[in-house]
């Protein structure tokens, strides 16, 4: 009899723990995949890899990063937009890229406000304008003055059409009423090469990539589009409200269960407080300013879309049909 009672108690306990466990682990129950529309070891890839490791360790569930750089991440975006709405396939991207394709390309298969639920968004770097260390331009004002006096003489190296950097540079031309010739390069390394070699008078990059060059005394940063550790004035302080700061975001298909977003929310908040994670961000020179929570994110996302709506589809790199 005693033995039977014991068995009963044990089995009830087992059931209870199982139930409790199930309650705790509504999500995630199986490995999660995050598609990243950029190549491995790009800033966005690095951030989500570190996040995946940190959060995956807390949840004891593997979170795998898959790089799908095809068509600037458009393929990955459609794949996630049409995925099962269970939170096991997510999309880590530059919000600007997704916003730009949504407002600029009338044929875009996805729309950032229609097809996605956003889990978090964060700033990580400021875009900066720089010259070679031996350049005569000591400040943004001097550069702008010269550009006004000698229209069309200055050449700036920038990144691809429609990138945050390109739009920042466009805004500077527009707001300061100057016409610096903008030469598109494949990416920041090519811009840096061009400026260091003296082929471009000015270049645009982000503060993460500029920092080591500044430390070595190779380049001088004139202004940034957001406060950054380089301690340079922002464009806004100089009278030009230029604000296409790169923002990263984690997205899932529209209509995910609220528990998924809540679980992520909590995990991300814990992660951001972890000194070890903070240290790895400092090592990368990233300045992370993360927003979570549906209301704040919704507002932020709409603002971000509005920033890109100021430009024509051509400026965003999409042909009007």
């Amino acid at each position, binding site marked *: 009899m005693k033995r039977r009672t014991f068995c009963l108690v044990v089995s009830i306990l087992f059931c209870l723990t199982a139930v409790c466990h199930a309650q705790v682990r509504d999500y995630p129950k199986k490995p999660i995949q995050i598609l990243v529309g950029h*190549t*491995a*070891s*790009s800033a966005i*890839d*690095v951030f989500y*890899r*570190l996040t995946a*490791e940190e959060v995956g360790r807390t949840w004891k569930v593997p979170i795998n*990063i*898959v*790089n*799908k*750089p*095809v*068509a*600037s991440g*458009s*393929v990955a975006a*459609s794949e996630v937009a049409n995925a099962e709405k269970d939170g096991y396939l997510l999309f880590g991207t530059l919000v600007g890229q997704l916003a730009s394709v949504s407002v600029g390309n009338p*044929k875009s298969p996805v729309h950032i406000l229609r097809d996605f639920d956003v889990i978090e968004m964060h700033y990580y770097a400021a875009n900066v304008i720089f010259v070679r260390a031996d350049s005569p331009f000591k400040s943004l004002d001097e550069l702008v003055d010269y550009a006004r006096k000698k229209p*069309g003489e200055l*050449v700036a190296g920038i990144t*691809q*059409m*429609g990138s945050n950097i390109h739009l920042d540079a466009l805004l500077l031309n527009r707001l300061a009423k100057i016409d610096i*010739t903008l*030469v*598109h*390069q*494949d990416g920041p*390394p*090519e811009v*840096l*090469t*061009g400026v*260091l*070699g*003296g*082929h*471009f008078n000015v270049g645009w990059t982000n503060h*993460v990539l500029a*920092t*080591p*060059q500044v*430390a*070595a005394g*190779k380049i001088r940063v004139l202004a940034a589009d957001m406060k950054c550790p380089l301690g340079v004035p922002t464009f806004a302080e100089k009278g030009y409200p230029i604000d296409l700061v790169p923002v990263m975001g984690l997205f899932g298909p529209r209509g995910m269960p609220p528990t998924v977003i809540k679980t992520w929310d909590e995990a991300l908040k814990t992660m951001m407080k972890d000194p070890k994670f903070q240290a*790895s961000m400092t*090592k*990368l*020179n990233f300045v992370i300013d993360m927003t979570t929570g549906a209301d704040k994110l919704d507002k932020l996302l709409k603002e971000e879309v509005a920033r890109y709506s100021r430009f024509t589809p051509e400026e965003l*790199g*999409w*042909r009007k049909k």
Partner: protein
Amino acid sequence: MDAFGYLWMGLSTVLQPINLLYCFAGVFCGTLVGVLPGIGPTGAIALLLPVTFHVPPVSAIIMFCGIMYGAQYGGSTTSILVNIPGEASSIVTCLDGYQMARQGRAGPALGMAAFGSFIAGTGSVFGLVFLAPVLAEFGLRFGPPEYFSLIIFGLTALLYLAHGSMARAMMMALLGLMLASVGIDPLTSYPRFTYDILALRDGLGLVQIVIGLFGVSEILITIEKGVRRTIFDTEIKGLLPTLRDWKDSILPITRGSILGFFLGMIPGISVVIPTFVSYALEKKISKHPEKFGTGVIEGVAAPEAANNAASSGTMVPLLSLGIPCGAASALVLGAMMIYGVVPGPMLISQSPQIFWGVIGSMYVGNLMLLLLNLPLIPLWVKTLKTPYPILFTLILLFCLIGSYTIANSMTDMVIMIIFGFVGYLMKKFEYEMAPLVMGLVLGPLMEKTFRTSLLMSKGSPAIFFRRPISVVLLVLAMLVLISPLITRKRLAEKIVQAEEE
């Protein structure tokens, strides 16, 4: 401390057991991905990246660099044995390497490829030690106009790449240039020839096309001929290069190394173009240019030396300026940032252990590669005896996996298969593939640099003639173009003379 003192520091870093282990792991993986067609160093590094988060930074970077130059050793193997380049940088090796294998001289070809790579690899370590900072600054002087002139010079290599009809070679080069224009316009970002297929926005990838053109088509041709391969019938003569081979190869290896190293360190040139140029150079100065393409050992030694030296050359801007040239070194750069090592001009003074450790590891790694690759030669030669139905299934499998892993995209696999059939038809109708690939490699660079230059000069083509480096390169290109007029006359006289005798 002088350069030797630092080098000693680097060597003592790499000789720590843990670093030796990672170095070996790197060169071993490198050889492996080099041998497998389609799977390249970029894919391997991307796959290993997350694994290395908890590894000491020096060890991880040593391993990644090992993959980069190790792949250049392995790339030649399949080029020589089955006429399928393991890497894009081994395309030229197919031209003479495969012919050598058909004559039963696969062993010497593989051996010379390994020795050539070793000599180039170790030689360029010294180049890195003594010249890196100076050279890095020189590399920066290449702006868009200089690149354009360099590419024009590179295009003249076409004259020497073809061994059949020149008209057909030109057609193929032109086709290559045309295929290179698929994808988004580099300056305006408008999609061109994409037919609303999203994946085509990135253009037709070099690797997919190369695997298709060379790999899949080779398999189709062989199956058509009947499954027995002619290559088995030839007796295998010798496994190592003879004294004669050495005599023929030593100068081409030296020239290939120097050329590869200098071209490799110019950001954006990477490892493929130097192999084309070095092959062209050897054919140009050879006493028997007509034999190129029929299995001469110089045609294997020079480009193999060039690609290895070039992969070391790409380390110059990477380590001394923090500028990556090529996808693989961009990955290594990103990896450094994850480890908290700041790549850039300060690397040498801030983290000397990493800079010199990597350089020391390249010396040790090249030695490991030689020791690893020489004993493998008999094994590789034996693989030719594998029943072909098994061999080609495996090759096809790796081709498919390789093209998929580039960007995890199905479209890339489809592109590869389509170009397999294109390659099959080209072989059937005797059109050569190397000129096409050359057009494809040079096309995007040429277009971008030409248009950027004109933007910089507000539309005036005079920019190409105002800058000294650009002028020198254009003059060189001109000389190469008119020189056959002179040498051909001499050649004709020689033939007449020979006939009289």
